[in-house]
């Protein structure tokens, strides 16, 4: 990470810390600022995992409702965004799993990562065969829509890594902490997701 980025990040962390403290002292506008600052990132994580707008918004609202409740006992020295990303990831994954288990007859389960990958996770990977619901189709331009559909079809492990990368301030190290895997695994999952997507989109 460049110095300028590192500095910006440091400033942002300090600002979050101050906002959390102000909220703890009863200043609700500090919470509003936290929401304003971070809700788009929570949404991006959720969207990438659940792959539809309605569920992503539901998850995002839920993330901040839970944060709002728990913030009074949030430790001042912990990083707000790390905590928020983890909640968003957990809630989004659960929503995704739920959606998947409802349409499980349409999913193909394979036992190995994509061929050619050196992923060391060993978890099962499900390839969702489900298309986006029709009402999702009109909201984005053709390439974006196609990207979304292909993103949705990517194995969970790869999509999650790429989507977390999409939240620009997350480093590979942050992502590896969030996903609970090694740095090298993050690098290869992101690359793999990009490689698959650009082939499928003809880029």
């Amino acid at each position, binding site marked *: 990470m*460049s110095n300028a*980025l590192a500095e910006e990040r440091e400033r942002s962390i300090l600002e979050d810390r101050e906002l959390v403290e102000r909220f703890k002292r009863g200043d609700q*506008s500090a*919470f*509003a600022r936290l*929401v*304003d600052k971070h*809700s*788009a990132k929570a*949404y*991006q994580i959720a969207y990438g995992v659940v792959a539809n*707008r*309605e569920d992503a*918004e*539901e*998850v*995002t*609202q*839920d993330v*901040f*409702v*839970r*944060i*709002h*409740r*728990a913030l009074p*006992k*949030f*430790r001042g020295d912990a990083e707000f965004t790390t905590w928020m990303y*983890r*909640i968003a990831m*957990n809630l989004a994954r*659960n*929503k995704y*799993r*739920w959606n998947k*288990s409802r349409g499980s007859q349409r999913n193909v389960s394979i036992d190995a990562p994509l061929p*050619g*990958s050196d992923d060391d996770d060993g978890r099962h990977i499900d390839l969702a065969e489900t298309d986006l619901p029709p009402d999702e189709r009109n909201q*984005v331009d053709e*390439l*974006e*829509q196609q990207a*979304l559909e292909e993103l949705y079809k990517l194995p969970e492990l790869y999509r999650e890594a*790429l*989507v977390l*990368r*999409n939240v620009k301030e997350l*480093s*590979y190290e942050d992502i590896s902490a969030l*996903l609970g895997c090694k740095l090298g695994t993050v*690098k290869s999952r*992101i*690359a793999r997701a*990009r*490689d698959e*997507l*650009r082939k499928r*989109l003809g*880029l």
Partner: protein
Amino acid sequence: MSENVEQTGCPSFDSISAYLDGEAEGQETAHIESCAHCQRILASLRTLDEVVTRSCQPPEGLSARILAACSADRETASPTIIPFWGRSLVRYAAAIVVTLGLAFAVKQTVGGTSPDHASPTPPSPTIADVGTGGIGPDSNPIDPGMTRVVSADGGNTAPVNVMPVAKRLVTSQVSHVWGGKSLDRVEKDLSAQLPEGAKWGLTRDNAGVSIQASLTDEQLQKLVNGIHAQGYDLFSPELPQPNQEERVKFLGGSKKIIYQARFVNVNDN
């Protein structure tokens, strides 16, 4: 790993991808910046990144709706006004007070609430720290009864109109995802919670446990409270939520709701 990386001396596709994220090694950086072939790959990755980023943009007014949801969630707190929202909220303050009054009345008539599940505070914040309830859209996201906020001009900082909190009916089919530290006891825990004579079934697969039960809305609320009290965390925002009877408009009577619950292990990563 990609057929596009065929030039001798070019770093791997993984490295070019890492370069895009500012995570490449020093000697790779020098090559990538001076190699036309690498630059072409990089250009396609930049385009891809833009498309993916654009396709995941949040809808307008998201922050305002989040704040409204948080406000509605503070059902037991005094109805103070969030300054950020500006004056338009004042007009609705009276409605909120009335609704809160109703909520308390309902809580008293329903009765039978379980004691709050005392969650331990782990040293670092985790999902366990953030409680288990949640407000969010039910199956119908634009249900007028919902506490949703519409921004006056679509901007996140504009004053917003808040609809009063309203109790909602439980939908005829409810789907919940629960997280548990261990799933071995789900069957035992549930059979202790389900009302006598209730119809229910349980299936287990290698990813979790699913149950389906047919219950009245009041029975379902009690079941949800009971599951929560046994230490499971509810991840779905759909009503009913543990110990939040005040958000539910109970029908009474014997109309049955199909309840599907999926239990997943939360220690899997």
